[in-house]
Structure formats: C-alpha cells, structure tokens
C-alpha cells in the first residue's frame, strides 16, 4: 500500500534534461573516503525550485557529504550535479551561485559582523557603497542591524546563527544550503528560529536545502523531505507522505513509529502478526504499521468494543505516561506490545495491569516491504 512520492521529487534516471522547476538535479552521486567509508552510495534526487527541502537521516548517513558536493567543496567520485540547467559537477565552489550556513557557522574571527556579512560581495568585487547598502538591508531583514559593529566572539549562539544566515542570504544565491543550523541551540530558541527560518524562506521564495537529524524539525519545516540512510535515499516525499505512508521499516522507525510488526501469514480475509489477527484486505508485504492515532483504547467490557466488529486487540496495560494533553499507554497483546495514545478529556487513566481493548480503523493501517 505504499504510494509513489510526488512526481516532482521522484528521481527519473531516464530523463536527462533538467526541468525548469528543478533547482538541483543529482544523478548517481557516489563519494567514498577510502574503501570502508562510503559517504554517498548512489544518490538520485530532484529538488524543486523554491521549496524548503530537507535531508533527514541519522548521524553519519551522508547529509553533510551531500551538501558539500552541492556546494562544490568536494567533488564526487561519480555522478552528475545540475544547478538550474547548468552541469556544475566539475565547477569550483567559488564559481557556484550557492551559499552555505555551516554547522559550526564558520564565521571569520578577524572581521566584525558587517565584515562577515559583506565578505561574499567583497569577493565578487562590488563597490563599497553597494556592499554597505546590501549588508544593511540584509541585517535589517534578519533583525541583526544593531549587531553590525560587534566582534564575533561577542555574540551568543543564536546571534551567530543569524549572522551566518545573513552572510549567505546577502549574496542572493540560487540555492541556500543549511547544515543542521539549529542543532546547537537550546529548545526554546530553536523552535522560534524554526518558524523564523520558514518565514524567511517563504518571503524570499529561495530554494532551501536544510539538513537535520531531527524528524520533528523536518516535519514542521519542510515542503519535501528526503530520508537518507548509509549514503542512500530511502524515500522522498512530503512530511505527510513520510509519516503516513513510509516506504520501508527504516523510514517508519525514523519517523518515530513504534507499532511496526513482521507479518507472519496472510490470506484473503486478513493477516497474522505478533499481537494476533488483523482482518481486512492487505497487499502482499513484510511488515504492518499501526500508528497510535488510528486506535482508541477502551475498557475490555466497554460497549464500543462489542460493536466494533473484527479489529479489536485485547491486552493489558503495561506502562502509562501522562503527557498532559494526552496519555500514552504501552499495551501487552499476544507476544508483543503496542503503543496507543488517548486524548485527555478528563476521563482518568487506566491502571497498570488493567484489561483493555484497542479498536482500530483498518483504513489507516499501512503495510510495507523491507
């Protein structure tokens, strides 16, 4: 029941002419640092122009390597890269109209904030008046115009992040690359800057390629997300596609899904898995995924359970977590456990050990291979 991802982002290796609405087109990118450090193991990807595009994956999966290839800081061992209609695979970094917000910010300590922001314009040979004017405008846009005279070591983490952003944006690049720009910040500042970054991208209409290892961050911010694993793209799609229709168990687990079970047997009327039987018509697959939100939890003898029909799982509460707006239960059923959430409407919590029944909508059940 997996669905193909949106046509604008699904790679099509046969098609060799970049589309007008494609900002970046990657084909067969391969990059290794020695025999056992394969950073990119064949990446095909189309990044739509003007989108907020996120590369999501665990640490060491090749996100930074991919950004460096796009920026031109590394040359891939194999494969091609187009930015717009131009093949830039062998074009030096300083000749690409792409700018990067580095994970460490990489601000120049020998220059003040204004000097940092104006660096790219200066290298481009703009005159002093133009540089000052554009630095001033960008600083105002990012709301750091009061910091222009400061030295870098007088700035807080959040301020440095903004300076790094302004230093890249002032050049009006075709593509802005952001390597985990928020991961060094504390939670409150981080969620504020997430919204702000999104607002900036929307206002400029610039293509942003954003790297994160945090699936919540990817979901909140992105138009499209590409999930990377060991140098390969596992799935590309909108946040909703990835969450609701993950292509394989890796993506499902990475999106935070706990209820993922191997299918043991399947017939015309349903399938059998670790917690028991699930009735319905399912495609042939290896795993079944049941999102906590498609289940409701009831006392074992509640009237809803009797009228629910086939798809009821009986079990016992093993753990419960009070999360304010909702309660989260771990329920032992068959040979396994399921996680289910219940909105807090003041109904009180089930006790640990209580017999409960989980009622589910089979339309929300996803089967997946791999």
């Amino acid at each position, binding site marked *: 029941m997996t669905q193909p991802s949106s046509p604008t982002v699904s790679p099509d290796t046969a098609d060799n002419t970049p589309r007008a609405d494609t900002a970046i087109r990657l084909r067969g990118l391969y990059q290794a640092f020695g025999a056992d450090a394969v950073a990119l193991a064949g990446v095909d990807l189309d990044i739509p122009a003007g989108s907020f595009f996120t590369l999501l994956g665990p640490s060491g999966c090749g996100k930074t390597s991919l950004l460096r290839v796009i920026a031109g*800081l590394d040359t891939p061992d194999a494969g091609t890269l187009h930015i717009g209609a131009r093949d830039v695979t062998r074009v030096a970094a300083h000749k690409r109209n792409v700018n*990067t917000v*580095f994970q460490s910010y990489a601000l120049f300590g020998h220059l003040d904030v204004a000097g940092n922001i104006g660096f790219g314009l200066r290298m481009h040979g703009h005159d002093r008046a133009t540089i000052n004017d554009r630095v001033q405008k960008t600083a105002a846009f990012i709301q750091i115009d009061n910091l222009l005279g400061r030295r870098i070591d007088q700035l807080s983490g959040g301020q440095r992040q903004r300076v790094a952003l302004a230093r890249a944006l002032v050049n009006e690049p075709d593509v802005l690359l952001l390597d985990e720009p928020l991961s060094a910040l504390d939670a409150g500042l981080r969620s504020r800057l997430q919204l702000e970054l999104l607002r900036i991208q929307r206002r400029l209409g610039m293509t942003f390629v954003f790297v994160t290892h945090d699936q919540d961050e990817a979901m909140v911010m992105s138009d499209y997300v590409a999930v990377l694993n060991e140098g390969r793209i596992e799935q590309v799609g909108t946040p909703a596609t990835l969450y609701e229709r993950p292509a394989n168990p890796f993506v499902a687990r990475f999106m935070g899904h706990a209820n993922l079970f191997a299918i043991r047997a399947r017939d015309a009327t349903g399938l059998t898995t670790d917690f028991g039987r699930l009735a319905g018509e399912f495609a042939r697959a290896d795993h079944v995924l049941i999102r906590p939100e498609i289940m409701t939890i009831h006392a074992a003898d509640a009237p809803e359970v009797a009228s629910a029909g086939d798809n009821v799982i009986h079990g016992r509460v093993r753990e419960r977590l009070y999360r304010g707006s909702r309660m989260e239960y771990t329920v032992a059923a068959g040979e396994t456990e399921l996680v289910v959430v219940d909105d807090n409407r003041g109904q009180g919590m089930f006790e640990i050990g209580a017999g409960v029944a989980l009622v589910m909508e089979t339309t929300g059940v996803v089967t997946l291979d791999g």
Partner: protein
Amino acid sequence: MWYALLVLLYAPLAVVVVYSFNSVNSSADFVGVSLRWYRALFADDTILAAAWNSAVLALVSSMLATAIGTALGYGMYAHRARRLGWLIWLIYLPIIMPDIVYGIAQLSFFSRLAAATQIFDLGLGTMIIAHVSFQAPFVALLVYSRLVGLDPRLFDACSDLYANAWQRARFFILPTLQPAIVAGFFLALTLSIDDFVISYFTSGPESVTLPIFIWSAIKRGISPEINAIATLMIGTVLAAAAITLAFQYVRHRQSGE
C-alpha cells in the same frame, strides 16, 4: 617561595643594569650614578660596528625567517593529512639540536661550500643564512599552531563565499595569521640577538656582532662597558616583547567597536 625564584631569575640582570650606571670602574662599589660607560660605548668604533652588524643580522634574518617560516607553517598545515605529513617532524630538528652541534655543522657546511663555489665566504651573509635556518622553524610552528586551532570549515566558507585561492590568502589566511606572524617576527628578532654559539661559528673577520665582541672582550675581564652593552640588549629584547604584546592588544581593541 615564588619570590625566591624571582630573585634567582632577575638578581643577576639587576646587578648588570645597576653597575652599568656606576660612576667608577668597579664591580664591587657603587659610588654614584653616571652615563660615562654609555658615552664610552658610543665613542668606540669597534662596538658601534658590532652593534650595526647585530642589528643588520637580526633585522634581515628575522624578515627572511618570517616570510619563509610562514610559508613553511602553511605548507605543514596544508599537508598534515597527506602522505608526506610525517615530514613536518623534521621542522623540530633545528629546534632540539644543541646549538654547538648546529653551529659546527653550519661551519663545516659553509667551509665546504666556500671551497667549492668561492662565494660563500664566512661573514654576514653566512650568518644570516644560519640564523634564518634556526629562526624559521620557530615561526613555522607559531603559524602552524594558529592554523590547526582554526575551524577547517573557515577555508570552505571562503570558497563558498566566492573567494579564489588568491583572495582566500589575502582576505582570510593572512589577516587571521597576522598575530602569529608578528609574534614570529619578534621571536626571531630575540633569537637572533640572543644567539652567540651559531653566530660565532659562522662569522667571519668582518662580521663581529655584539655577543661575539662581548665574548672576546670578557676574556680581558668584565668592564662596566660590557654592563652597559648588556643593559642595552636587555632593553632591546624587552622592547621587542612589549611591541609584540602592544600590537596584539591594539589589534584586539581595533576590531572591537
């Protein structure tokens, strides 16, 4: 305890400075304050020639060593992860080598070279080469340690912000290294002024420097003139150190507001 150590360190220097102002020729009685030994110093052509040689040697060798050492330090950094990376350890050799061994090696090297080519006669030229060869590694190490302390992404940021190799050197590497280069120059200056052993072995009859002059003069006994020379040398070295610090302080303040 610490004060005892300070006394131990600075008492001999203080004695030299105090007796250089003595009005009589004695290293036992301090009779009165006078500048007569300084006047004698500036009237003595041999001493002035030695001072001139020392100054030329120190300035020329320090400038050459700063340029060469900076290039060397950057080369060490650029190649640190490559196959020839181990070669950087050779840079330590002139630093750890005893001066006497180094001086003798230079002497025999230049003698052979002079015999073969007729142009490397011992003199100020060979002294400058010898000094550069032991100063440059110190400069290189200062520059190298500044570079390895930098975020390597800064080099990427230059390319990302459209700087070509030349612009990167001009607008990022050199300004970033400036404190290390200035410190390296003044360190080279003090090393050169300090040096006796290597100078002694590589000098010729025409190129007596202050330390060599002092050494030969002292064989005839310590005179108050020697105290005066020593005091001036202490002053020069302190000034070099002070300039280094002041320069870094000013730079720090300038980039402030």
